[in-house]
């Protein structure tokens, strides 16, 4: 439908519209929206008092307080603004393998679903592609739910490829980000753990609210299709390892993969970050709607 993936049925989009992005802190936005902002404004959320001064709107004078103190005080309210949402999508070569798992395709679907949730609730979305080939969408904020079609078209032109250092790439991206907000990082995180922690730690240092979404293929998680004496080649670094895979080694491999995901999950949860693991054999719609809390969303 309109260039969106098949899973984005009208029913699914309607379910997405019921969701909104939840943040643990308030961020200033760029326009009116539904999220409380640290700025003073005209919402119903009380913020503070200040002394009345000439020119203030006397409708905001707290008469009850005047009766008790015999002084004029103006009630201040919080502003409600839109939320700046950044979606970082890993498009390195590792997202291409195993080809049967279609990891990148699933990662794009998650990015689009998250973008739609944000756009539907009036927030601004910027999608930034890490590595990858083909035309990348411009790193600008888009606003309005109709822009999801444009995002889907642009993401459809991105081809996974190339290699990058996760922490360094994010550090470069952070230099061009001037406003804090909600961040989603979608990647397989199949890299050295310290690179992941350094990269994600950058967002914490910048006071961003982060959700890490790890996308892994069913085959790569379970080691399916690997058997006998094989030479495995790293899709990004080109490193080659000759391994003999049997039932015992496959189980060992699976446990190592699970340990890697547990370590990333543990890192995120200990620091109050959201973490969600999506394995490609899961049905996309049910995963997304079930992992609402893990993804940092709310109804």
């Amino acid at each position, binding site marked *: 439908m309109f260039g969106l993936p098949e899973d984005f049925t009208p029913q699914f989009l309607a379910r997405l519209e019921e969701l909104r992005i939840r943040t643990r802190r308030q961020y200033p936005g760029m326009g009116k929206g539904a999220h409380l902002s640290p700025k003073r404004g005209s919402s119903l959320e009380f913020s503070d008092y200040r002394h009345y001064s000439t020119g203030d709107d006397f409708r905001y004078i707290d008469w009850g307080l005047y009766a008790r103190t015999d002084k004029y005080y103006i009630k201040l309210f919080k502003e409600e603004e839109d939320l700046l949402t950044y979606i970082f999508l890993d498009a390195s*070569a*590792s*997202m*291409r*393998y*195993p080809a049967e798992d279609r*990891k990148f395709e699933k990662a794009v679907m998650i990015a689009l679903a998250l973008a739609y949730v944000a756009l539907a609730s009036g927030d601004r979305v910027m999608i930034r592609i890490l590595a990858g080939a083909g035309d990348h969408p411009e790193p600008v904020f888009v606003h309005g739910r109709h822009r999801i079609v444009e995002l889907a078209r642009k993401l459809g032109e991105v081809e996974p490829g190339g290699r990058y250092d996760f922490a360094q790439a994010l550090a470069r991206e952070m230099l061009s980000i001037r406003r804090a907000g909600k961040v989603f990082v979608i990647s*397989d995180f*199949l*890299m*050295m753990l310290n690179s992941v922690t350094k990269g994600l730690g950058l967002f914490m240092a910048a006071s961003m609210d982060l959700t890490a979404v790890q996308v892994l*293929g069913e085959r*790569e998680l379970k080691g399916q*299709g*690997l058997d*006998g*004496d*094989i*030479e*495995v*080649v*790293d*899709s*990004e*670094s080109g*490193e*080659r*390892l*000759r*391994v*003999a*895979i*049997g039932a*015992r*080694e496959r189980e*060992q*491999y699976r446990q*190592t*993969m699970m340990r*890697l995901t547990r370590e990333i999950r543990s890192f995120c949860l200990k620091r109050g970050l959201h973490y969600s693991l999506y394995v490609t054999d899961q049905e996309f719609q049910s995963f997304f709607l079930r992992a609402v809390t893990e993804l940092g969303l709310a109804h």
Partner: protein
Amino acid sequence: MGLLYPGALVFFAIVPALVLAYLARERPSRVTVSSVIAFRALRGLRKERFGGRPRLDWMFLVEVVLLSMAVLAMAGPYLVRKSTPIAVVIDNSAAMQAKLDSGFTRFEDAIGKLERKLSATDATETTIFVTTPAPHRIAPPFDSEPEAQIALRGIRSPAPSIVLRNRSRSSAQLIARSSAPISSTPNFSSVPSS
């Protein structure tokens, strides 16, 4: 250097066969994976081998060295050491104190001749025996000619009043016993001075 069983060297023909086997070793199927991080922890990990072109394989080198050593051992190599050991027996009995026309004693004359003889030879090992007070070797074999000459100059002849009773032992007997400890029970007899 030689070989006891040179025929065993034919087994060196196995080395080219080993090289051929190494080159023709079955190449594993290659699989591109997203990351090799999880594979590094596998117990079944093997050393990276060439994929289409030979690479240095330490195991192969070790195999070749072991095989070569085994074949050489089968061939039985031996080493012939060329050396000219010299045994010198000096009679340092009282009779050697007799004066010669030159004014030197027989003993001094003998030592002088011996020094010149040692200088002329290319002896690799010199063993010195003396006959008095009992036949014995004066020191472990000397490896160089200067050491032997210094040792010769240190030999003293006993006083003429002491006569060695068993001086009649032959030089051959002394040399034959050179490797065994020499008996240290001298047997002297005194003779009346003239």
